[in-house]
């Protein structure tokens, strides 16, 4: 029995794949170092992230997989639900050990599962692209806070870079406590913890930080939202299927009326 630990990074996880092949010692468990519990049975292998090794594994996968399958593996990493490391490992091993392409073989359980995870993460990414609501601050920054089910912030940055090339913006993931900040040239990932605030207020803008027109446009948006509705066609079930309640906290049109 082999228990692998790594630093929690994607490169670290790819290094685990490399080391396991090198030792021909297949992992029983793969865990991030800070979560790993000492085990009475079996051997613990502490893997140090090595960019070169990680890259060799990635290139190997690249030769055997399409861009969309590679994306699925990265999405599985961002999925962050229990067991994702094992899933990525098993998938990679199947790819390396099969003489022919395994892509699209939905009769193999973890290929199907990775495909389903891809769909879940992709949907959350798309929702964040839709439901992010920027608030303009007095110094001209457009700021939004999110708390997505999966770690999709790295996936949505490009979309917002392309769209808002001429405005400074920041998106903060309040549950993972990091954000992306675009300064008109580049986007950087930043930590912006404010020790003076309680965890619930963390990453939230206060109204006194707003641009003078911010409240007005939030209100106009609420007015528009209410008047584009056709009451005769009311369909709460369909409404909720499209915007489940857990997303309402982002949406200015779902907040108490300003008017």
């Amino acid at each position, binding site marked *: 029995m082999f228990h692998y630990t790594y630093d929690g990074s994607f490169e670290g996880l790819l290094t685990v794949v490399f080391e396991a092949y090198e030792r021909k010692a297949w992992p029983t468990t793969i865990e991030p170092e800070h979560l790993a519990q000492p085990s009475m049975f079996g051997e613990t292998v502490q893997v140090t992230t090595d960019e070169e090794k990680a890259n060799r594994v990635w290139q190997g996968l690249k030769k055997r997989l399409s861009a969309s399958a590679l994306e699925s593996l990265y999405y599985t990493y961002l999925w962050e639900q229990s067991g994702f490391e094992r899933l990525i490992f098993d998938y990679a091993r199947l790819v390396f050990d099969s003489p022919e392409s*395994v892509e*699209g*073989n*939905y*009769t*193999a*359980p973890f290929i*199907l599962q990775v495909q*389903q995870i891809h769909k879940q993460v992709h949907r959350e990414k*798309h929702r964040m*692209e*839709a*439901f*992010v*609501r*920027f*608030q*303009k601050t007095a110094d001209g920054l*457009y700021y*939004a806070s999110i708390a997505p089910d999966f770690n999709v912030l790295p996936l949505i940055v490009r979309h917002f870079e*392309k*769209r*808002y*090339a*001429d*405005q400074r913006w920041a998106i903060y993931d309040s549950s993972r406590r990091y954000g992306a900040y675009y300064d008109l040239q580049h986007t950087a990932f930043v930590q912006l913890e404010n020790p003076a605030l309680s965890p619930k207020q963390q990453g939230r803008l206060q109204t006194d930080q707003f641009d003078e*027109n911010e409240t*007005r*446009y939030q*209100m*106009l*948006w609420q*007015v*528009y*939202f209410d*008047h*584009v*509705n*056709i*009451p*005769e*066609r*009311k*369909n*709460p*079930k*369909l*409404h909720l*299927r*499209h*915007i489940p309640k857990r997303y309402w906290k982002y*949406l*200015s*049109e779902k907040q108490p009326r300003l*008017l």
Partner: protein
Amino acid sequence: MNDKIIGKLKILADAAKYDVSCSSSGGKRKNENKGLGNAEGMGICHSYTEDGRCVSLLKILLTNFCIYDCAYCVTRKSNDVQRAAFTVQEVVDLTINFYRRNYIEGLFLSSGIFKDADYTMERLVRVARKLRQEEKFNGYIHLKTIPGASEELIKEAGLYADRLSVNIELPSEQSLQSLAPEKNYAEILMPMDSIKNQLVQAKEEVKLFKAAPKFAPAGQSTQLIVGATSESDRQILQLSDQLYKGYSLKRVYYSGYVPVSTDSRLSIITEPPIIRENRIYQADWLMRFYGFDVKEILDEANPNLDLDIDPKLGWALRNRHFFPLEINTADYEMILRVPGIGVKSAKKIVSARRFAPLHFDHLRQMGVVLKRAKYFITCQTKSLQRQDFDSEQLRRRILFGEGSVRSALLTQQLDLFRKVG
């Protein structure tokens, strides 16, 4: 706080909402000038109204003053409603500020006809021009084309807009004559034809010069009102079919008529025909993505869609001789025709069966919905259904479950009472 804008927004959003199109997809406009916005690829619904419709664009009328008196329209001249008009700058400001906050993908601008067609169209074009040229806006713009507007104006509109649309609204010339006496088919079809020709021409030019100006890259669409007049589903879908083929429309939208008035020219209805509208959309999808011909969906003997079952199931029940289908060997085109199996499931099936013969368990794990499909397919010659049913029995089992026939009949009767009451 500028109360005037609030008032205008209320009136002009209210007046625009019966236009159901809200699509923002299919554009190819990139942000190449370090400007604002980007309209390539996938559309995004930024919110959903309480009636479950996508909110993707700021959809407003420039004005609801109108010289026409179309019976179905809330904006008609004789209707006693508040009137308002935006200035060009007000629309530009709303669009830009909503867009910067990620509320919308862009603007859908329509208008009542004031003075004449050209005067109105020129105003719409002016908004789009200002957004593109002064604000460097690359987001999505959908402009309504006013029937009767000059060809030059339509051409200019197409340079700024991603999509153009002309609404036909009434599915037959006869209805148009009685409900919208100032309009006629020829006048509506003319701009559609002109847009089609421009689209073709622009495509030819892009082949020659890559930098040739794009013309409405997301194509054109139209809308038909369902339930305000007496046309059958067959008439409506035949018209759509002709529009898709003859004018290469991207979309025909169907708007279940919401009784916005008590105009004596209209048939009396109390509720919008939402189920009928839904069935027509399903049939439209069958024509566009599932390889069905309109003649297969409806014919003289069946001029209207069955409201209780989807049109694909309806077709399958009338064409039992094609089934059961062996999932492991059937053509992709035929798998698409199995009730309950959509494009995604069909693709997964075709992909997975290259590796191993498929069982029903595989299908279930892949997320294929078997509720209806199980009556029409076999997996390695095995069927989930032991008995043979005739089409009528099948219909009942799918609608009312596999329980007793008695409870099924009862539900049906209660349903009838509900409909009458």
